[in-house]
């Protein structure tokens, strides 16, 4: 087994460096070739290492490659070291694989943009940071990647920084993430203080030999989970993700669907030993996840912006992944992460294709009947929607079912019911989107209709590939009813994630649960069909009937307004008051006075610097006399 895997992140990094330094002088064609090529090479390396991993027995433990020792303060050491094990292998494959397709897609999507090179440079840089995050072998290096993806996300959300709303959205994402990161840093600090190292192996060992008390483990786990909430947009830190849709659509697909936002789930799964040990944190995570799943799904029901629907859907699906982690089904959580990466980036890219076709229109109220105009986009969009809705035999069905079955098996019935409710809504809002966009009457802007066209091949081919995986990706993790061996995915992850004692569900119960899932998915689709195709009057009737509720949901439960009122405005007024009364008078006064005092001494002293050698010699002599005098007496 070679250790070549440490090169995986550096290929995109090198490409980003070249693009940042010399990008302006390179021809566009070369830029796209290099950017996509770098990610493809990375993907090749990841695949190569992955197959190497398949052929080694898990007893070897994870492969660790320390490039150099990075921080050494006292007893604490952190190496710049990478780790390759089944979990990071899957993450690396998802990041580079989906990332590569999105790079290709971007070649078409961004072809007219004047910031073309900058875009690819940042996209490569993001890939590098994300790979550092998933390959890091300790929390400190992981934090570097964590912050790196945050930074790149900020740069890419605000990519069209001329638009004030885009620049503002970038800021919002950055600031909300800071809140989570505060918890994350504190968690790392506590970890380092108690364990003395932040290597994942050391953390697992510390849990094993009782170095870490349960209370402390809970504290650390909660602090780290706050960080995960920020990055993965869980309640109550979810507010940045919908606004992040201001960025280019491929960015939303890569960062805000497939990779960065799943970092929180990855982190929890990576530290599953710690979370299992703490015990009490699991239910909290499951509850947060379940609430987020339902809450975000309700908001997705009423959005009119096609990308925002998908954004809320992402938040909701991330909630499912956290349910998985919370009920101890880490492998199922990662499994959902993996299938979600395919169908959600497919949905985003397909939505991008729709937007592209309509010359930038994002409002579903001005779409409709696009089925015949977009013969490529429509079927792949449908595949994505069916997959996420949880219709059997597609990837989303298997992964979501794995999570819910496990929740049921753990007797977390509240979570299970919430999950089911979310699933109905998921199916509903996805098909609402499909029906509003592709079916029914055309409500197109006449100007946009003139330019209506299907996207070029460079965009549709990645869509087709993603659609293929959205259908098939689930077959590596079949439910237990089809035999113990069916869950290849879970068994592959076993070296990292110890399978917990199986909740003993009878075969009958399992079949029953699967049946319920199927019914739920079909029910959602059916309702959407009735509401938006059969009897289009119903939604309006409902809105007229429950205007308050509609308004509440439509305005996203006023969370942004609550934050404005409770936190931001008081902060602004408070800081203005402090500025006026404290800063200007006390601080500036002190600073100015001390500055002028310092300047005064400087002036006095500089009179000594006469420029005459005899004075210099005199001072020199005086210095000697004093120096020797003090030595002697």
């Amino acid at each position, binding site marked *: 087994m070679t250790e070549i895997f440490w090169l995986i992140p550096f290929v995109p990094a090198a490409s980003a460096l070249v693009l940042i330094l010399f990008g302006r002088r390179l021809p566009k064609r070369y830029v796209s070739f290099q950017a996509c090529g770098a990610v493809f090479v990375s993907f090749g390396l990841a695949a190569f290492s992955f197959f190497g991993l398949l052929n080694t027995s898990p007893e070897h433990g994870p492969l660790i490659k320390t490039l150099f020792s*990075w921080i*050494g303060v006292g007893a604490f050491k952190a190496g710049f070291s990478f780790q390759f094990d089944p979990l990071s292998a899957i993450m690396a494959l998802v990041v580079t694989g989906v990332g590569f397709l999105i790079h290709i897609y971007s070649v078409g999507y961004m072809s007219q943009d004047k910031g073309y090179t900058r875009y690819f440079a940042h996209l490569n840089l993001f890939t590098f940071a994300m790979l550092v995050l998933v390959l890091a072998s300790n929390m400190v290096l992981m934090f570097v990647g964590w912050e790196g993806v945050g930074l790149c996300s900020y740069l890419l959300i605000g990519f069209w920084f001329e638009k004030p709303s885009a620049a503002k959205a970038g800021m919002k994402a950055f600031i909300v993430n800071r809140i989570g990161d505060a918890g994350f840093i504190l968690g790392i600090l506590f970890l380092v203080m108690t364990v003395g190292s932040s290597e994942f192996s050391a953390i697992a060992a510390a849990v094993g030999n009782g170095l870490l008390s349960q209370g402390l483990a809970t504290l650390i786990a909660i602090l780290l989970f706050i960080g995960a909430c920020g990055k993965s947009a869980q309640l109550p830190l979810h507010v940045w993700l919908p606004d992040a849709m201001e960025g280019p659509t491929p960015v939303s697909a890569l960062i805000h669907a497939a990779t960065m936002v799943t970092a929180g789930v990855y982190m929890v799964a990576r530290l599953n030993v710690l979370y299992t040990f703490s015990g009490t944190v699991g239910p909290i995570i499951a509850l947060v996840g379940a609430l987020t799943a339902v809450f975000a799904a309700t908001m997705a029901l009423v959005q009119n912006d096609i990308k925002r629907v998908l954004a809320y859907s992402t938040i909701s699906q991330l909630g499912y992944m956290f349910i998985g982690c919370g009920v101890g089904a880490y492998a199922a959580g990662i499994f959902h992460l993996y299938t979600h990466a395919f169908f959600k980036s497919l949905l985003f890219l397909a939505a991008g294709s729709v937007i592209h076709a309509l010359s930038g229109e994002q409002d579903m109220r001005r779409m409709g009947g696009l089925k015949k105009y977009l013969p490529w986009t429509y079927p792949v969009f449908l595949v994505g929607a069916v997959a996420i809705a949880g219709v059997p035999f597609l990837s989303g069905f298997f992964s979501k079912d794995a999570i819910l079955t496990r929740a049921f098996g753990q007797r977390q019935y509240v979570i299970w019911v919430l999950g089911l409710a979310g699933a109905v809504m998921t199916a509903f809002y996805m098909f609402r989107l499909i029906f509003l966009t592709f079916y029914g009457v055309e409500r197109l802007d006449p100007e946009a209709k003139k330019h209506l066209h299907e996207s070029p091949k460079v965009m549709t081919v990645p869509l087709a590939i993603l659609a293929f995986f959205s259908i098939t990706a689930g077959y590596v993790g079949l439910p237990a009813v089809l035999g113990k061996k069916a869950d290849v995915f879970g068994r592959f992850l076993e070296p990292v994630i110890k399978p917990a004692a199986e909740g003993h569900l009878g075969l009958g119960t399992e079949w029953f649960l699967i049946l319920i899932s199927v019914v739920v998915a079909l029910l959602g689709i059916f309702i959407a069909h009735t509401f938006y195709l059969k009897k289009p009057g119903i939604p309006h009737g409902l809105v007229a009937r429950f205007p308050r509720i509609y308004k509440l949901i439509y305005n996203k439960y006023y969370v942004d307004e609550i934050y404005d009122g409770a936190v931001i405005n008081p902060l602004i007024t408070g800081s203005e008051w402090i500025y006026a009364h404290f800063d200007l008078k006390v601080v500036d006064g002190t600073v100015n006075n001390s500055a002028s005092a310092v300047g005064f001494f400087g002036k006095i002293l500089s009179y000594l610097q006469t420029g005459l*050698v005899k004075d*210099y*010699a005199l001072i*020199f002599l005086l210095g000697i006399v004093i*120096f*020797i005098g003090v030595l002697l007496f």
Partner: protein
Amino acid sequence: MNGFGALAPLLIIVGAALVILLLDAFLKKDNKNYLACLSLFFLVVCAVFCLRSWNKNLSYFEGQLRLDNLALFLAFLFLIAVAFVMFIGMKYLTLQNVPGGEFYGLLLLALSGLMIMTSSLNFIVIFLGLEVLSVSSYALAGLKGKDEKSSESAIKYFLMGSFASAFLIFGLALLFGTAHSLEISAVLSSFRANFEGQLLGLVGLGLVIIGFAFKISLVPFHMWTPDVYEGAPTPVTAFFAVGPKAAGFAVLFRILAPYWNEGFKSGRIFDVLWTVAALTMLIGSLIGLRQKNIKRLFAYSSIANAGYMLIAVLAGDGASLIFFLTVYLFMGIGAFGSLIALSKKDREYTDLEDFAGVGFKYPWLGAIFSVFLLSLAGFPPTGGFLAKFYVFVGAVRQDLTSLVIIGVLTSLISAFYYLRIIVYMYMREPERDVDIEIENPALFLVLFLCLYGVLQLGIFPGNVLYVIRQAAASLF
């Protein structure tokens, strides 16, 4: 272990200096760049010899010349410094009409002086190296023969330098009188035998310290620094800022560090140097505030930095000192190199006012210069931050907390004048016409390398620190 290998690096440099001086005298070519290439070749050969002697502890002349790891590491630093200075000087010489091919020869001679100083444990040999260095430095300072300021700086440097040397050699005489030897260890053991009774020896040691204090510009022996820094050609100033300072501190550390472990810590030398360190930091940062000329400002900055380095000497913290010197090499040459970049034919821009708006007119230069300034001011993640951090941490461990407090306060004060340059570059409208000769690949190569060095040492210092610890281990 004895070996001719110990002599080889020195021989190469001295030989190269002679060859280059004679070549310059006989081949009267207008373009002197071939001399730079030739010197570079010799520097590389010398570096190879230095690398091969690592960990071998070679010595020659019956131990008078000793290539221990510290000497080798410093020699390596000096080689880098001189190579950088030659590169940033190449274009400068033609632009500013400095007639000298002597520049290269004298630099090599100064380099040999530096290497002699750091690779001996005998006072008289160290003195020899110091004089070789000094005499070449005087000539280097006056290289712009037609320029009044340059001549003035050379004369001032020469006068003050001879003054200091006189006291240094007087001190050596007194030391020899008491210890009957000029080996550093012999002097130490004679003090060990009878510390209080050796008043004359103490005076001698004090005078020797003063001799070095002059070279590394500690207050109150610093008065020459601003004038010389301002008047000397800028590449030479860059050399003065990093080369002699590093050698002087290394020697001072070699001489003094054993005394702290001897229980003389309450001794007066320590107290006096404590005061000198505090004064040096204060004067360096306070007077620096008043300077409008960037070269003079850097002179005071280098004085203030000498104060921080002296803290490391007082704390007996060799590794931190050497790390500081290493970082200082990169940021010093980088800062002066950026200054040189801001010049054109027959005109150098060294006033603070000249820097107004430069950040927008020359974004790359502005950005690079800002990094060096931030490093000098001690902001993370640059090397300047870590250097100060290590020195302060080491000093706190040795109960020098009050000195560290002064150090932190003065670095706050000096951060003000570094940041002021950045403010001028980015927040002022340009008032004067500043246009620069951009065609200078050698200079920009050096700037880039220095930038790399500053960031590498600030972010990933691990490997360098490992080597430095090895080097510092040979001190005791």
